[in-house]
């Protein structure tokens, strides 16, 4: 099954490009430390998922590029073509000239309806080129105008046009100390709208990735390219082929569907966080050895202590004993700072994955009480290692990971809204105060739901 990627805005296009690079780099650059047969299987599955063949040329990414100004797309297209390993379809993009001016309303209410037909036409064409469509993966930032506003509109259109397809939105959370002054407004509007049309939101926070670049990757002068490459690596670790069942004979054919089924049991809970370990500069890899027990232990603690990366993990945080009387701030018996999960998915790649003990992730005390613990946890595996890491483990988690960031963004947006600052910029393009209020209400509901886990 194939996934159609839709890259929206500057951020979406820059990241999308790195994702396809990472996937290609993984497939071509390493032999996976496994059998030749396994490697070929992996290669084929990956190709079918993300690329299509075009006659005698390099594989073409199954992607639609959308932006409201031309510079980023033209750079993305040409850089990809230069790689020699893959490229974009030269006609599979749409851009305008003016940009969206960081204005969600401009992206959603003006550009969206105006260009709906052209954009959906491109998506339709790309979808038709899939033997079997596995769903849509959209990449966008929340802070700007195109990715956020037009992205929300396009997601709605996808839902209308493909009611039974899976839609996963990859959303970039901006730096807390602004990149865009109205980013909190744009974020609130984006999240509330995506929640209605999307199946799940997979979030990456710029602040977190920046720290990974600084502290784990030892990069001194961090650029957006560095940030995007780390993000791409993390996404690759989730979406490269895996076996979803023990003793499975073939690589999963329905990655998006499987993901949704396992992680989003209830439509009120759609926020997914991502962790991937180990993460280090390439030249360190030769000197490092990893053990599965070590990796699993770290990953689990990162989950329950809500650690954003493999450094500075708080080992004091422990899951509660069920039925105990530990004082807590919630009506449930979970202690403070403990990250409660709805559902978790662990993805293991590399040597000896068949022997890994994942019992610690099945501990019922990690999860909210209304889901059967057996259903709350799943694991995908492949003996084929990913991108030069002999062993790597990724965690996709539907938990309270994003509760604090969400609360922070909504709080700041509300604070600004109370003063009515910048509202005239939105009403100018058709988004009224009532629309803002609806969005705030929707997100307070999500916050409340996650808080009460």
């Amino acid at each position, binding site marked *: 099954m194939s996934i159609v990627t839709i890259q929206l805005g500057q951020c979406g296009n820059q990241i999308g490009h790195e994702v396809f690079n990472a996937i290609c780099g993984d497939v071509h650059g390493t032999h996976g430390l496994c059998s030749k047969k396994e490697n070929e299987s992996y290669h084929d599955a990956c190709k079918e998922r993300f690329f299509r063949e075009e006659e005698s040329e390099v594989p073409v990414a199954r992607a639609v590029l959308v932006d409201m100004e031309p510079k980023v797309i033209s750079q993305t297209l040409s850089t990809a073509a230069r790689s020699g390993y893959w490229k974009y379809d030269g006609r599979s993009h749409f851009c305008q000239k003016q940009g969206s001016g960081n204005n969600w309303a401009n992206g959603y209410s003006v550009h969206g309806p105006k260009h709906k037909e052209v954009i959906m036409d491109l998506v339709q064409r790309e979808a038709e080129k899939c033997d079997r469509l596995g769903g849509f993966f959209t990449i966008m930032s929340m802070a700007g105008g195109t990715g956020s506003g037009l992205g929300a509109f396009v997601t709605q259109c996808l839902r209308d046009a493909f009611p039974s397809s899976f839609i996963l939105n990859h959303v970039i959370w901006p730096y807390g100390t602004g990149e865009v002054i109205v980013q909190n407004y744009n974020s609130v509007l984006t999240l509330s709208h995506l929640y209605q049309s999307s199946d799940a939101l997979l979030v990456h926070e710029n602040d977190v990735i920046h720290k990974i670049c600084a502290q784990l990757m030892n990069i001194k*002068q961090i650029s957006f390219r560095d940030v995007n490459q780390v993000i791409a690596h993390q996404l690759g670790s989730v979406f490269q082929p895996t076996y979803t069942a023990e003793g499975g004979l073939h690589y999963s054919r329905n990655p998006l569907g499987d993901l949704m089924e396992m992680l989003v049991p209830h439509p009120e809970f759609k926020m997914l966080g991502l962790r991937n370990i180990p993460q280090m500069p390439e030249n360190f890899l030769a000197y490092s050895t990893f053990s599965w027990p070590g990796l699993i232990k770290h990953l689990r603690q990162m989950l329950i202590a809500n650690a954003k990366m493999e450094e500075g993990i708080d080992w004091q945080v422990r899951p509660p004993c069920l039925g105990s009387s530990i004082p807590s701030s919630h009506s449930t018996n979970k202690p403070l700072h403990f990250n409660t999960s709805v559902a978790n998915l662990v993805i293991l790649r590399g040597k000896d994955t068949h022997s890994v003990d994942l019992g610690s992730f099945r501990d019922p005390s990690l999860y909210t009480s209304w889901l059967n613990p057996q259903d709350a946890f799943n694991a995908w595996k492949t003996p084929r290692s990913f991108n030069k890491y002999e062993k790597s483990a990724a965690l996709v988690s539907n938990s309270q990971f994003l509760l604090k960031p969400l609360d922070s963004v909504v709080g700041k947006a509300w*604070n600004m809204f109370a003063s009515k600052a910048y509202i*005239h*910029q939105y009403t100018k393009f058709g988004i009224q105060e009532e629309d803002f209020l609806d969005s705030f209400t929707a997100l307070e509901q999500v916050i*409340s739901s996650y808080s009460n886990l």
Partner: protein
Amino acid sequence: MGRSTAGGRWGEGGRAVGKPRPPQRRPPPPPPRPLRRRGFRAPSSKEKAAAACPAMTQSVVVQVGQCGNQVGCRFWDLALREHAAVNKALLIDMEEGVVNEILQGPLRDVFDSKQLITDVSGSGNNWAVGHKLYGCQYRENIVEKLRKTAEHCDCLQCFFIIHSMGGGTGSGLGTFVLNLLEDEFPEVYRFVTSVYPSGEDDVITSPYNSVLAMKELNEHADCVLPIENESLFEIVNKIHQMVNSGKLGSTVKQNSMITSSTGSAKTAQEKPFDAMNNIVANLLLNLTSSARFEGSLNMDLNEISMNLVPFPRLHYLVSSLTPLYTLADVNVPSRRLDQMFSDAFSRDHQLIQADPKHNLYLACALLVRGNVQLSDLRRNIERLKPSLHFVSWNQEGWKTGLCSVPPVGHSHSLLALANNTCVKPTFIELKDRFMKLYKKKAHLHHYLHIDGMEQSCFSEAISSLSDLIEEYNELDATKGGPRTDPSRLKIAV
């Protein structure tokens, strides 16, 4: 010396924009002419590969009055240097003197002599003459010329008006054109660079002209970048001192000063105001750099307007450009880079007499060009944030942009735009100087005898300015006070 209005644009041909004219079939767009494709260069293979992507947006520069034209010419000079090619521009002129000089000089190919509006007399430092008399007289002509220019733009995004506030043409006719632009091209942004008069201005009526113009700026501009000659003068002096002091270990790179014209098309002797005008020209170049060149985080003009204008009338942006010059050594230690950021917030780098650091920020934008990384930008924001005061509802109010291409002669540069209450003193002084004249009704008759001018024009103008000052006062009152965030929405669980 002439009084004139002039305009210029870069970009290629295409369909018309603006208010719909009586129904007529638009001619099909001309076939793409390679030399004009993306701004100034002939298309590279990269551009050919992206042939299906439309060219970028265009801006039209409208230069009004003596000051406006002198700055404008500096701008075109430097813009050409940045893009290293020649392109067409529009020139509307009020006096023959300036035009003739330009048409004979090295920039003659830039300006199309067919697009002129000239008049011999000038405006006598009288806003009413510029705005009411000439406005009325030349309205049709100006609209016609503007339409023609706009028609050549594939996608017109912004008008830049350059003028001074204290005189007659720049101030009066300039603000008249501003009104016109709003009527005829409501969708297109209007950015105005206004040179405010100093206290010792030799034009006695400059306070009248400025306040009358302010009302127009309040009501019809999207963004105003106020400039004061005193600040430009101080910056020029500062650079001269540094260059001549011999204190620096290394030498200053010749064409790297933001005051220099070296390497530009101009070969004649530099006029006394050239250095100061170059600074303003550089401001405009930096403002538009992200629209013209690539970068990892683009910052277009519509984004500037969106992020820096929280309330419609509070659209006055204090600007600073750093560094003022580059030293000859190639390696830039990060200490020097950090200094560039610090300087952007210092009093003596602002282009008006203002101190943003000790006043209240409503919003701040940083546009970095050249060899500066994201981490440098973020580190400096974190470093400088604690010493700045931001309004309670915009505590993290930063807008940032990263453009890969630095200005000519520099390896990196920074443009800071601040929506800050530090503009207030400038406006208060202006109001005071106005009132001093107005109370005695000094020189009023020169204005009132112009058709269309009445006493109410003056009272409305000063009222508009007072209201603006009051808005800033209200914001200042919140500074340093206790912060109580509004309580959040409660929803039923």
